């Protein structure tokens, strides 16, 4: 089972938010969708789940168009950030009413799991959604996402507003669920380093385009930060795929992405350092604002 995204574009009036996305999401993986604010993450996830229409392109589940396809949609759930302002759609509902609606319309709903998670997160079922704190709303979003049991579950900023204990609990629950069911999760987040260990693959979305989609481990193993004397660094990185070279006086630094089978060996006056996911993201997507 896989979701295929073919040349998906989304325009809001003259603004092009998604610029021809081609993407394949396979079953049984946890994807991290990472991008800056306004990169188009929520728009992409809402189109992948047929909550919003694409301006152009197709989304297919095993070759079948998902738009207005009830059978295909029963395999997909997008837990988007719930707006808690008074004019949002969920604002008038209590937690238990929201869960009841989810139970009614999500075909694979696990009632016991929803009950267990609600208790675990100490969610007050009688509380109105507008009265919940940001963290509590995120918890509700997580409860529905996990209890939906959808084969493809997309979570938009699930840990936003959560304290560190709740975030750890979420990552643990997610891994447990993933191990047991082999569901596919796509998680968009800004807290990259914390979640990096659970992402099997990362997708960098930058200015409406997929900049990178790669296995997390391979990406980290093939990325090296090189710094040292300018001449020595230049000699070492010659012919390599480099990003963001910076010269400071007589020193130079750059991020090198090694190709398959390529190796770097440090010499005199050169330091090689491993990089983390956040650093790679900043280098690739930081642009002029990068410090």
């Amino acid at each position, binding site marked *: 089972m896989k979701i295929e995204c073919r040349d998906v574009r989304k325009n809001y009036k003259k603004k092009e938010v998604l610029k021809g996305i081609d993407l394949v999401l396979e079953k049984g993986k946890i994807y991290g969708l990472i991008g800056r604010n306004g990169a188009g993450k929520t728009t992409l996830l809402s189109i992948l789940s047929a909550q919003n229409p694409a301006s152009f392109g197709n989304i297919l589940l095993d070759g079948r168009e998902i738009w*207005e396809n*009830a059978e295909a*949609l*029963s395999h997909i*759930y997008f837990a*988007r950030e719930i707006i808690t302002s008074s004019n949002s*759609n969920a604002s*008038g509902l209590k937690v238990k009413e929201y869960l009841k609606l989810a139970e*009614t319309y999500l075909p694979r709903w696990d009632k016991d799991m929803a009950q267990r998670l609600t208790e675990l997160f100490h969610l007050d079922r009688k509380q109105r959604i507008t009265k919940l704190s940001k963290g509590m709303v995120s918890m509700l979003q997580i409860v529905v996402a996990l209890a939906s049991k959808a084969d493809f579950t997309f979570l938009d900023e699930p840990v936003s507003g959560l304290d560190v204990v709740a975030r750890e609990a979420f990552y643990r629950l997610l891994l447990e669920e993933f191990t047991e069911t082999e569901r596919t999760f796509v998680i968009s987040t800004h807290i990259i380093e914390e979640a990096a260990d659970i992402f099997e693959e990362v997708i960098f979305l930058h200015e409406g385009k997929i900049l990178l989609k790669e296995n997390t481990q391979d990406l980290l193993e093939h990325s090296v930060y090189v710094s040292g004397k300018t001449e020595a660094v230049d000699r070492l990185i010659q012919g390599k795929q480099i990003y963001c070279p910076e010269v400071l006086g007589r020193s130079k630094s750059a991020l090198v992405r090694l190709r398959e089978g390529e190796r770097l060996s440090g010499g005199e006056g050169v330091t090689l350092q491993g990089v983390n996911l956040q650093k790679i993201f900043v280098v690739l997507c930081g642009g002029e604002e990068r410090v």
Partner: protein
Amino acid sequence: MRKKKSWFYHAADNLCGMALFLGILLVLIAVRREEFSWESAKTVIHNYFSLPGIVLAGVLGAFNVILLYESTEPLKISFGCTRKQVFRDMQAMKIATLFTAGILSFFLSGQERSRIFLKELLFWGLLLLFLQSICECMSILGMRYKGLMLVSILCISGIIGFVVAFMAMDFIKNGEIHMEWPISGVLENWLLWAAVFLLGTILLVFFSWKFFRKAEVHI
């Protein structure tokens, strides 16, 4: 609430609202008259549960249409319902509300089961279906332009307020409500008006679907 019967529950909500409102009216009239007999209750039911009944159910239905598009319908889409299912359920709710209220009105009208009454019933049924379709169209547009939603809520609240104030004034003055609808002129051309409302409704439903099938969902 079961997934496939949501329209049924919403239609039942409208009819229960109508029954509750008219029940309160019945009690108020009984209290005002300081006496209660089955005969007088029957007269009141005949008077108020016939045409005012369908009007009330229709207006409550219109209000419900706005509320549903404002609250649960986008959530249903976010939980995986197709837009076609959601829209079809809404049409079923509108028709079920007016059809059931029409049948109730017909059977509760007592002596009034004449040709004229049937014409009036049909006229009001189609007018209310038209009103509900206007509210539906505004609500769907309101998913994109929030201001429009406020306009439709304001209009329906105004209509409900006007009807209630009209009834309350009559009740305070005379101890009874004389629902004299100024539609006798219209009824002479009832077929024309019925056709106008029916055509208007079909057009509104068509445009509502056009807007709704590509509507953006935000929860």
